[in-house]
């Protein structure tokens, strides 16, 4: 019997082991999961971001390799710090700090020492990198701007924020995404689709080849190229014209709603936001609270439109039947309508203006009277203002355009609800809001809304939502950009208004007379909008904005444009000439009026802007002593 003991023990042990194996391998799943988290690493493979072309297929944005110097602290051996610092153009403290940071993160995993080096920096470093064990160069893809213009249109890409990573699982820390402009609007198309590569890891978390021979891997899908509606030549010219001025230029092709140029001044070179100096440059732009280069004035700037708004009021008055072409209003150097002060105008007293003249000479009295007539046509002003507001909004005013530009502003077209809030229900009197008649008062628009309104007039009653995308390679345009949007104004009412706009240029006494171009039939309207600002907390009237809207040619228009020059004194001083130069450039390609061009290119309003913050007293709409 004694020899049975060991037999028994051996058999029992064998059975227990098989039982334990059964438990570990067949019953309990937790080990499998743990081994998976041990065993592989999911690596994103980044696709090439799509290129951006202008409407004439000029390449605007491409990609360039950018190089990060990476370090694996564990592998670093003593090296010539001075030489490395020289090659990287950084000081020793910074290098030491970066190495310390890297070691803190992980001694075995790579960390960046210097990010986004250019090809030139890379070239000199690459020859010597072998002298620095533990360091290597990681190639990445960065944006390569083929142009210095259009920063506000093109936008930029930046590293995702932790918040974004949390909300959008597609992104992971360190990814780049479009943060403004086209890069933002078409992020999904431009970015492509990341691929996944599974790498098998060892116990040090090092890669030791592909996992399951790459059967689980997916290839990245490159981003699609897009063509934008911008005409790079026109855009560049616009930016040059706006040099040393603040404001915006929007040019739209009325027949399609394509935005030909979208100038916001001041702007910056988009290449500033690429490369080693990116974060320094961005901070500088971001913190410039005076010139606000990151603020897109053509899209976000909300201004009183001034006189161009008279065009809209004329159209509404015609539609509502309160005037016709021949209705005359006598201007007594203003309109006396029962208030303490007359509604001022620049016409000599006793001028009798019909619609045509009221437009080309921009008579305030005419439009003040007409506006009151529109409102008073209805039992009370609240109903009137509601009717009026509806007409105005049909031109795309007072709300977001709902287009593919990443920023925008609603502007403001007041309606009865707005005034009920301001004055109490039905307490509104038409005379309270007479300023709306000339685009002052509560009315506010953004330059792009104004340009769109002009396009709608040019089209005689409809518009296409202004948009920036012309063509997506292998994609289709959203339907909303090809849908005709019809205004509430009947087509026949446009002709007299357009004739008035035409005469702005053609008739002596027209506000754009001096900006006309031989051979091109331009229809336009100047504007001078009063503006108040706070200086040291005191509401102060500042120099008027210079506004101009135009389209050309008169028949079959090719371009509609709105120009806004902040504090440009009056419409015909800056905005009208700039608009006419833009139109000439776009339609003819060359400029015949060289002296005007030179004056506009070299003209500067910097001293005016400086005077607001100088602390010295100033008189508005005068040249400042330099």
């Amino acid at each position: 019997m004694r020899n049975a003991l060991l037999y028994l023990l051996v058999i029992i042990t064998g059975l227990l082991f098989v039982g334990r194996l059964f438990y570990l391998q067949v019953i309990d799943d937790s080990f499998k999961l743990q081994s998976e988290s041990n065993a592989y690493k999911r690596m994103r493979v980044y696709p090439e971001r799509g290129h951006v072309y202008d409407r004439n297929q000029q390449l605007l944005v491409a990609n360039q390799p950018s190089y990060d110097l990476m370090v694996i602290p564990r592998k670093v051996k003593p090296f010539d710090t001075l030489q490395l610092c020289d090659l990287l153009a950084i000081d020793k403290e910074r290098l030491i700090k970066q190495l310390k940071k890297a070691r803190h993160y992980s001694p075995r995993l790579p960390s960046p020492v210097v990010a986004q080096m250019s090809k030139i920096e890379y070239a000199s470093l690459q020859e010597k990198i072998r002298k620095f064990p533990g360091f290597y160069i990681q190639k990445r893809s960065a944006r390569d701007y083929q142009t210095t213009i259009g920063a506000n249109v093109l936008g930029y890409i930046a590293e995702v924020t932790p918040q974004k990573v949390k909300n959008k699982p597609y992104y992971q820390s360190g990814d780049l995404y479009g943060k403004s402009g086209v890069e933002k609007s078409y992020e999904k198309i431009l970015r492509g689709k990341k691929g996944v590569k599974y790498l098998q890891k060892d116990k040090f978390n090092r890669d030791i080849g592909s996992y399951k021979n790459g059967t689980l891997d997916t290839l990245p899908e490159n981003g699609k190229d897009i063509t934008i509606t911008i005409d790079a030549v026109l855009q560049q010219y616009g930016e040059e014209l706006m040099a040393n001025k603040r404001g915006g230029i929007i040019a739209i092709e009325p027949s399609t709603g394509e935005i030909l140029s979208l100038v916001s001044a001041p702007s910056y070179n988009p290449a500033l936001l690429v490369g080693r100096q990116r974060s320094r440059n961005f901070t500088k732009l971001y913190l410039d609270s005076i010139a606000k280069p990151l603020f897109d004035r053509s899209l976000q700037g909300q201004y009183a439109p001034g006189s161009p708004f008279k065009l809209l009021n004329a159209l509404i008055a015609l539609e509502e039947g309160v005037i016709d072409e021949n209705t005359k209003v006598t201007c007594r150097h203003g309109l006396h309508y029962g208030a303490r002060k007359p509604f001022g105008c620049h016409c000599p007293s006793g001028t009798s203006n019909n619609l045509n003249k009221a437009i080309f000479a921009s008579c305030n009295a005419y439009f003040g009277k007409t506006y009151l007539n529109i409102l008073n046509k209805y039992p009370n002003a609240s109903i009137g203002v509601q009717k009026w507001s509806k007409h105005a909004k049909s031109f795309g005013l007072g709300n977001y355009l709902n287009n593919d530009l990443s920023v925008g502003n609603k502007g403001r077209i007041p309606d009865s609800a707005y005034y009920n809030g301001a004055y109490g229900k039905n307490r509104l009197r038409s005379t309270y809001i007479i300023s709306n008649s000339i685009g002052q008062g509560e009315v506010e628009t953004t330059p792009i809304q104004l340009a769109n309104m002009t396009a709608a007039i040019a089209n005689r009653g409809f518009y296409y939502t202004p948009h920036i995308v012309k063509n997506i390679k292998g994609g289709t345009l959203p339907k909303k950009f090809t849908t005709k949007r019809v205004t509430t104004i009947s087509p026949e009412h446009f002709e007299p208004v357009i004739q008035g706009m035409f005469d702005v240029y053609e008739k002596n006494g027209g506000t754009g007379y001096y900006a006309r171009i031989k051979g091109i039939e331009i229809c336009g309207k100047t504007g001078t909008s009063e503006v108040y600002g706070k200086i040291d907390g005191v509401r102060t009237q500042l120099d008027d904005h210079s506004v101009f809207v135009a389209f050309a040619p008169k028949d079959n228009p090719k371009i509609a444009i709105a120009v806004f020059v902040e504090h440009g004194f009056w419409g015909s001083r800056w905005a009208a000439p700039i608009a006419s130069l833009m139109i000439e450039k776009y339609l003819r390609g060359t400029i015949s009026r060289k002296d005007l061009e030179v004056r506009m290119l070299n003209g500067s309003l910097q001293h005016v802007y400086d005077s607001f913050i100088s602390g010295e007293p100033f008189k508005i709409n005068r040249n400042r002593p330099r």
Partner: protein
Amino acid sequence: MRNKGNILVRIDWLMILIYFVLVFIGWLNIYSASYTEGSTLGMMSQPHGRQQVFIGLSIFLIILILAIEAKFYERFSSVIYLVSLLSLAGLFLFGKNISGATSWYSFGGFSIQPSEFAKFATALALAKFMSDTQTNIKLLNHLLKIFAIIFLPALIIIPQPDPGSAMVYAAFFFVLYREGLSPIYLLLGFSGATLFVLTLVLDPMMISLICTVIALLIYFKNRKKKHSKLLYVAILGLCIGLSYSVNYIFENVFEQRHRDRFNIVLGKEVDTKGIGYNTAQSEIAIGNGGWTGKGWLQGTQTKGGFVPEQHTDYIFSTVGEEWGFLGSSFVVFLFVALILRVLHRADLQKSKFSRVYGYSVAAILFVHFLINIAMVMGVFPTVGIPLPFFSYGGSGLWGFTILLFIFIKLDANRINEW
């Protein structure tokens, strides 16, 4: 003598077959555990390449062992034992320290671990002493001599330090029991071990209480037998004393790493990243295998090198991951089959020397098999002892090969005896 030319007929081919299957499977798994991209067969820089050489030399050893006259082992057992003891003692002077233990002699790039060879030497010496017709295990005098033979090598090995290898010598208790040692020793050993583990899980107070209750129950049940009350009190006192002293030893004599290893297995501490890393990763590797395993060279745990010492002591985790439940059960089956076969052949021996030696072989293989696989599966504290025929290492492989094949030779020779 007349059957000398016939050894190939008399030899037990089953044991040899199992031996070669185990060695081959072992080598496959060493290859996988030490595989890196670009590995080729016979690369001497890799463990699997060196193991190939070790296996080749083993075959040479086997031929040598089978060729030598069987009587040689019995006659020279004392000499072999003494040489073995000297080689162990010599470590204190000439030994080389590898990963914390001075258990190796180093000749150039080549190391030998004498403790691997001391096992068969001790088995031979024990067999020789026991087979002496004068020896009576019931005599305390003789028993002490037997204990001396067994525990002398262990005592030299412990301070190297290599407690794992020393532990194996407990295997000889099974042999002694088979040969007539009072079961009291085994019983004491088992109760001692049980008490030890229970003390670590519960506290001494609790143990004392339980022991008292059990003692009272037994006493009242056996009242009629009129045992001396004193005996009960003495045994109870011994248990309680042991429990408290275990507690004291554990807390004050053991080093922290030993305490940690016990605590991990007993589930008193969970630490899969630090001290429990080995065990946790090994369990993950085995658990990752599933029914049929990941396939040879496909184990992610194995390829990633997550299990430390995987090609040596933890080689069974590779089997678990890459060959799954079926493969690892098969390996368990092979070991069980081999040990049972050795036991069976040992029982058939007419010569006491062969029988005792055979029993020793079976017991040593069993203890290695038990402790190693229990450790790899996370039910026994981490103790560094190899899996016979499986783990990487020349000394280990040769030590077990000699151990087994001397028995095969003795077994093949049994007809010559009377």
